[in-house]
């Protein structure tokens, strides 16, 4: 579904990604971990098309299409979703109107007619229950005055509504208390299926107790330096990242 080959990217002339290789197949759950500043969120931004990043080398293919050639909205319409680490507050744009516009733009791209008001409301209600999102937040301005947890839950709710093929969760767990973490994780787990893939970027192993990954990758200094299964996350939790860094330096000096 997603193939990343030797991806290099920089921001304001500073090299951030230095040759990422990653293959994600249908239905897989990948976790990307790594110390601060390793390039985790940058990878998410590059995949979603944030324009202050410049890709200097490499390719990204999504279902056979060149993702890097597409505008951010087209990536979303093709089925890539980024749950933001810091969701943006937009006063004056109601959550409902925002979702309706997004959904209908995606449908129009696929040649589908706009949803009827009744169908839209039905879908909204269903997904709201699925991810436990309060209906009283629906008519409010997008994320305005939402608590940290409410914002993150709104990201998961949008994910449920827009139903992408690939969801990238950028530190969705940071800043959440344990109850909010449980709600967010259970929302994600309910959305898992054989067709949908996830990339979960996290700083903390804690999240992976609730969302069980198929693969864990360690990102360090702009590259994936180790790939393993969920046990790797546990090892990182116990031992930190230093042993991996040492391993890497040993390898590089050979």
């Amino acid at each position: 579904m997603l193939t990343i080959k030797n991806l290099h990217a920089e921001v304001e002339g500073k090299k951030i990604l230095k040759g990422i290789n990653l293959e994600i197949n249908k239905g897989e759950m990948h976790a990307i971990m790594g110390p601060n500043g390793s390039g985790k969120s940058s990878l998410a931004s590059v995949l979603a098309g944030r324009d202050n990043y410049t890709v200097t080398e490499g390719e990204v293919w999504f279902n056979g299409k060149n993702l890097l050639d597409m505008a951010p909205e087209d990536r979303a319409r093709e089925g890539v979703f980024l749950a933001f680490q810091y969701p943006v507050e937009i006063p004056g744009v109601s959550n409902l109107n925002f979702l309706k516009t997004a959904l209908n733009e995606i449908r129009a791209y696929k040649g589908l007619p706009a949803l009827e008001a009744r169908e839209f409301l039905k879908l909204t209600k269903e997904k709201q229950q699925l991810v436990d999102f309060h209906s009283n937040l629906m008519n409010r301005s997008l994320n305005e005055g939402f608590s940290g947890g409410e914002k993150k839950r709104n990201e998961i709710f949008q994910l449920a509504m827009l139903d992408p093929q690939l969801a990238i969760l950028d530190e969705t767990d940071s800043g959440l208390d344990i109850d909010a973490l449980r709600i967010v994780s259970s929302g994600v787990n309910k959305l898992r299926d054989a067709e949908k893939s996830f990339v979960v970027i996290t700083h903390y192993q804690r999240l992976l107790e609730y969302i069980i990954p198929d693969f864990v990758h360690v990102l360090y200094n702009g590259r994936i330096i180790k790939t393993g299964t969920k046990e790797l996350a546990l090892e990182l939790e116990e031992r930190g990242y230093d042993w991996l860094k040492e391993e890497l330096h040993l390898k590089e000096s050979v």
Partner: protein
Amino acid sequence: MILPFYQALTEDVTALSPAMDSLHDIRRKALERFTATGLPTLKTEAWRYTNIQRYLKEFPYELLTTAAPVSPEVAESKAIPELDCYRIVLVNGHLQADQSVLPEGKGITVGAMSAHTAAPGFVTYFNEQHHLAGESMAQLNTALFADGLYIELAANTVLDKPIHIVHVYSCATHAIIQPRHLWVLNRSAAATIIESSVHPETAAVAFANSVLETVVMENAELWHYNVQQGEESFREVHTTAAQQHKDSRYHHFNFTLPNTPFTRNNLSVALNGSHTETNLNGLYIANNHQHVDNHTFMDHIMPDCNSNELYKGVLLDNANGVFTGKILVHQEAQKTNAFQQNNNLLLGSKADINSQPQLEIYADDVKCSHGFTAGQFSEESMFYLRSRGIGEDAAKALMVNAFSHDITDAVKEPALQHYLQEQIAEIMNN
């Protein structure tokens, strides 16, 4: 500077409207004032950013004082869907009884200015507002206007539904047209009045120089909306001089939307009584080479009054915006609360805004503030919307809607609010 319509000044002004004989002295004085000061220039403090002479010289305008027959569809085109209202149609300031539904009943007087020069409200308040004296375009109107709409509500009269006035401007050749209106709400009266204007011809350009005086007496309340969404062949100087008395409320909304190339709004409110509330809301969305100048003046004469002014602008393409917010707090006007805010989105590569707050405060126990912003869309917000599949244009439309929502949200008539939101969305989608 010689303009064709100046020639009319040499004619006997009384010939314009024989029905208004009683105004001869007022008109003569206005004419004297106008000829003494002449048209504003860029050196006139109140016109520093608007070269009106350039706009007046654009075409060989002649003064037009009569109405031409206009089909009802013209006014119909400005109807606000689902709005239950009394629609009143004026052509070049002249009331069209056959196209209008006038409110009737005890205490309600609505009719042509020319037919009401003896009405008590007219005798007391016509041309009485001193703010008009310093404005030469208003003097020109006083000297040469032909007709307009007179509204007077007696004490305790509350209109059951809004009045929607459609100003039709119709001319066969380029013309300057000068309607003049006076609305008086007596003690504890209440009304909602919405204004729209339309100029159906495209070949002949109409330049309106209209003046409206509104009087909101003790404990009365006026909701006043002006929707300027004119044609490319229309130009406008629109002067509104309001006065408020004790305990009264005046809510003014001004919407300037495309495509009229030149709009200048003079809005002044004189607070002649204490404990009043004034809300001045403005939204201007301008495209192409539109020039929109809002010139406002809050005159706090008496103590314990509140005024709140919020003007927001979206400037597209090469559009040019001007905002002036003068707040004058007299020495007697203690305990004044006067707030002013002007926020702008500059979206066109050559769009531009000149904004100047002018606060003159002579009382020491007051709360006054003003603020100005000009900016572009937040990139982070744009990216957020686009990352959800919303295309750039739709995202911009959503953001403009969001930017203007505190103005449109304050509109009290749901049908009008909906209408305006639709108009804004349509402008942004094109």
